[in-house]
């Protein structure tokens, strides 16, 4: 028995017609362009979103740290009531000084093109502190915020500090305002 199948006809249909190739090429080009546009737009959005997220993380983590420090403190020395100061100086739960102050971040300032600061925490221990020869070990500086453009501490009442801070990122600016109240304001035993 001879096996008959349409091999010759099949072979004839293996190639593509010009119309098929053109149609497929145009279709693929159109889809490719739209995917590329979508992907490039999404990529830009993603970069912006990532920067936003990093700034949000920087701000919220710093805010939590600052709030925890304020809540654990006993007294605010600077600013005085009503003053709007870039520096916050408090007496903490062990009666040591805690000073929050902005310090210029040189590499980031160069990158951004305007002065950008870090909010640093200096913990000045009374046990070793000598007022006649005050000194501070810079290696003990702790960074609370980065990308800081400006910060103000405002003592609204003896127990409450209002913090306003401005941050600069590559593509946008952020601002925060929050209150922190001392929770250690009672007398010690």
């Amino acid at each position, binding site marked *: 028995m001879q096996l008959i199948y349409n091999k010759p006809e099949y072979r004839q249909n293996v190639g593509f017609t010009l119309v098929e190739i053109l149609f497929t090429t145009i*279709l*693929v080009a159109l889809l490719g362009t739209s995917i590329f546009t979508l992907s490039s737009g*999404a990529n830009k959005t993603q970069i912006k979103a990532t920067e936003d997220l990093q700034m949000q993380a920087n701000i919220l983590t710093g805010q939590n740290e600052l709030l925890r420090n304020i809540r654990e403190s006993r007294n605010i020395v600077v600013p005085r009531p009503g003053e709007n100061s870039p520096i916050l100086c408090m007496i903490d739960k062990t009666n040591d000084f805690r000073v929050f102050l902005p310090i210029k971040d040189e590499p980031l300032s160069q990158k951004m093109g305007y002065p950008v600061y870090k909010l640093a925490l200096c913990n000045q221990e009374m046990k070793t502190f000598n007022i006649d020869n005050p000194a501070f070990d810079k290696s003990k500086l702790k960074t609370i915020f980065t990308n800081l453009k400006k910060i103000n501490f405002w003592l609204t009442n003896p127990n409450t500090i209002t913090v306003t801070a401005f941050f600069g990122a590559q593509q946008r600016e952020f601002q925060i305002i929050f209150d922190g109240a001392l929770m250690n304001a009672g007398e010690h035993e």
Partner: protein
Amino acid sequence: MQKKGYIFPAVLMATLAIGLFIVTLSQLQKSTKAQFKHLNEYQRAFNIACSALVEALADLQTKQWNNRSFKNSPVVYTKEIYGGQFNLKAENHSVENVFNVVIRVKYSEKYFLFYWRLKYVPDLIDFTTLTIPLYHTQFPGAKGDSSDFDGLNAKADKDLEKASENYIKVHKIAEIVNNKDSLNEVLQTLGVKLPGLPELSDNRPPIVTGLPPFENLKPRDLPDIISQTKGISKPSLKEVIEKFRLPEIYPPTKVPDIREILTIPLTRFELAVYVVRLLEIPEISDLPAIENFNDITPTEEPIQKTFNTAVSSAFENGLVQGWKNTFFGKEVMVREHMAILLRNVITYIDNFSPNAATTEQLNKFQRIRSWAGSKIPEYEKINPTSGLSVGDGLEMLLELSM
């Protein structure tokens, strides 16, 4: 016979690729949301801890000290609130009228520990406050899962002992620091005058009443709620930009979104355009400003041409005079000069013939006159030498362009 080709598989693959792309994007968004949620866990945990502490203090209010629930033995209980869980322990301290409250909060599978040592002080004058805090500390994150409550008491004892040792010295230094005349002296006294500090004034910081100003960031579009409460329909920033043809000086090719330049300084040229267009002064083709101001020269450059026309119109109508035949158009507009300009605007409005204006225009002039009158003292007295921003100028247009 119909040829099959590869069109259908190509379309299928493309659809699949787009589908996968959308799924990836939505996953990314979910993960971003999760990270935001994670960041605020401390604040949520603190809210739960404060609510738990209020419960413990309410127990004292209702039962009084002699009948307190932890009088004979510590009280320990667990409760779920605000989507989290707290575990509270209240117990007497060895000193009379002193007690400890430890609250461990579990939120989003994380633990936070809050500790209070409180003193019961019944006060007949203020019966709402029966306790004062002697010591408070917090352990966020990993340290919060400690179940060693006795260890916390020992830490509190140690910190309070240190506080006692430091008490006299710290208060003596605090008094010295508090009386210093400048922040530089404060930092010097404390030994933390470090390099890289911002420039600090030789005087103490200014006293602020009301909310501290949010500098350098101007409001974006006015929220609808303001116009709704005032019952006035205010235009949006976009409408104002179109109405005053501002793309002529901020071409979209250079400034795709005008909101991004709100914080940059406002030049005298830009303000001339704003004011001339606000007062609907015809922009003249012969340019007297070129003859009168040495720093204004004829040009075909479109933006500068718009500036020259606006300055000429403003000059012709007595709104700007310049200084020694110079206009200083590229300089930033300072507040005290803005006050002078507003005085000229009032004079212009007062000299305007009512016959030449429609009722609508007269009403608008009346609003501008009243606004200018209220703003002049503000510009003259508060930071007179500081510069205005594009945001300030647009705010003026938003306010007055109704």
